[in-house]
């Protein structure tokens, strides 16, 4: 019974609180950034193909520019980002959740595929964690925030995987834990580096405009 109550709380008030904190936090962070403003560039712009929009798109594919020694970051980085997107938007039960909040819906992918994607995503994240702990550059840069962000992103994958395969605990408890872990992710999102999912667009735009002003595509 307690498990049922926990699940009900997670689905109801818990989810609402998480949404509220997430959207409140995002609004606050974006206001913190936007209110700082930016001076207009008074130098005469050069004609060229560079622009903020272009950089927003091009940085999704920045890897060919850099002959990097760090293959893990690129390969595992792509796999885990794409994996997350596929799982969040194409698992049928997730689509049901989206249907509750959006006026339209779409078709899902077979669960076996999602299952495979989940495993790949978790492996990729494991590699990235290993890399963070061992690569000299990443070790130097890493803060508690990086490990927190990793943990709150990994937990929903792990609990989701266990829920689907009925591992370790009873199904309702697993489902409750899964939903709670997503709610934790939502709460942490605005106040951690996870906010890059939104601010990367403004960052790329600023940089793309600045380079574009000089006629350089970036």
């Amino acid at each position, binding site marked *: 019974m307690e498990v049922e109550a926990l699940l009900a709380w997670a689905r109801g008030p818990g989810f609402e609180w998480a949404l509220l904190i997430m959207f409140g936090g995002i609004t606050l*962070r974006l206001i913190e*950034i936007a*209110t700082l403003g930016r001076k207009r560039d008074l130098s005469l712009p050069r004609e060229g193909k560079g622009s903020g929009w272009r950089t927003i798109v091009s940085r999704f594919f920045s890897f060919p520019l850099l002959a990097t020694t760090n293959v893990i970051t690129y390969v595992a980085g792509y796999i885990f980002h794409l994996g997350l997107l596929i799982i969040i938007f194409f698992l049928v039960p997730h689509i049901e959740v989206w249907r509750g909040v959006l006026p339209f819906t779409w078709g899902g992918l077979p669960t076996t595929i999602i299952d495979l994607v989940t495993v790949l995503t978790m492996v990729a994240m494991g590699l990235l964690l290993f890399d963070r702990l061992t690569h000299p550059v990443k070790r*130097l840069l890493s*803060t508690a925030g990086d490990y927190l962000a990793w943990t709150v992103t990994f937990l929903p994958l792990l609990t989701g995987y266990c829920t689907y395969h009925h591992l370790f605990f009873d199904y309702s408890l697993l489902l409750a834990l899964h939903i709670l872990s997503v709610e934790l992710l939502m709460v942490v999102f605005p106040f951690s580096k996870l906010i890059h999912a939104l601010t990367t667009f403004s960052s790329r735009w600023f940089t793309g405009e600045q380079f574009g002003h000089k006629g350089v595509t970036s």
Partner: protein
Amino acid sequence: MSASLKRGLQAFDEVIDASVASFFSSCVHCGLCADACLFYTETGDPRYTPIYKLKPLQRYWNQHYTLGGKIASYLGLTTAVDDAELAEWQELIYNSCTLCGRCSMVCPVGNDLTAMIRKIREGMAAAGYAPEDLIAAAGRAVKIGSPMGVRLPALKAQAAHVEKDSGLEIPFDREGAEYMLLLSSMEIMNYPEYLEAVARIMKQAGKSWTLSSEAFEATNTGIQIGVSDIARTLVKRVVDAAEKLRVKTVISPECGHAYTAIRWDGPNLIGRPYPFEVLHILEVLEQFRLQGVLQLEGSESQRLTFHDPCQLVRRGGVIDPPRNLLRMVADNFVEMGDHGKMNWCCGAGGGVGANESAAELKMQAFQRKKRQISELGVDAVVTACANCRIQLEEGLEENEMDLPVLGLTELLAEHLPQREKGERG
């Protein structure tokens, strides 16, 4: 808190804007910017990771411009930026960054790291943590008019030499001329051939031009050290002279940092657009080429490559002109692996070359360029920046590579038809 630290932090307040806040918010600590930076790739020292060089500014922003950071400082969970931290970062911010801009091209979340390093230097300089050599150079630039202490008589003497050798006039303070030529001290003292080359090309093209005795030096130490007031004073000198002589176009010298300072930073420093145009000498030559007034003859058969000055390509947008111009006279021109907007820096820009405490590091950084050049098996390297040229010459010599380094403008002038040499009479 010391008065100087306070000034430094106030400077941080002035440079933090929406872009900086967005950049710091976005960083995921992936470390990829390290792979773009020659100071990291050539030393393997993780402290030279571009985003790490910005740590004091990042911490200051977090503590003062985000709710989470404010709460953390209130609870005593973070320590404030202090003198010891800035002193420790001096080496990272000045010695190991040439403001080359390569890191800004690759950051997956889109951070313009170079722009932020330029900004953090404002705080460092205000707090008294700029390298001594740069402070001295900036002082000379303001007082004497040149960071290397080159005064007008020295330029006049060089001009007289050129006039004697070439039989051409080197005009000073000619009102209403179409072009006003700027030079860098390095060009005046080390490469006087440049001035002669420009004079000869102008003669052939039939263009009117002049030097100004009030503003002939374009190197902007204020930008390199990070003191906008000095940068503004130096830009203002050029603007005043150009307005007084009513020229249409001001020609930036080959020096890349001088170009970005006068072309891109200048109007923002003085707070208004210019009533004249600023072009890099290579852009002017490219226009002459397109107008058909740059007629060259003969060609180089030796195998040549071109070293892109960072401030011309990535930070300046002058990418195609040097290639178009070089092809006019070079039959055997080959590109380096990474070239154009993804070129590797020579290792001496952004004030590094003028900073004695970075002398050893800059030669280590040069290893990248050395490898790029040796891979090609070329007979000579062409470039278009006196500062890069000095570094290339020193670096090649130190690595016992016997290769000449040529200035593009001079190379072109050598191919002017003989009669254009302006032999007297």
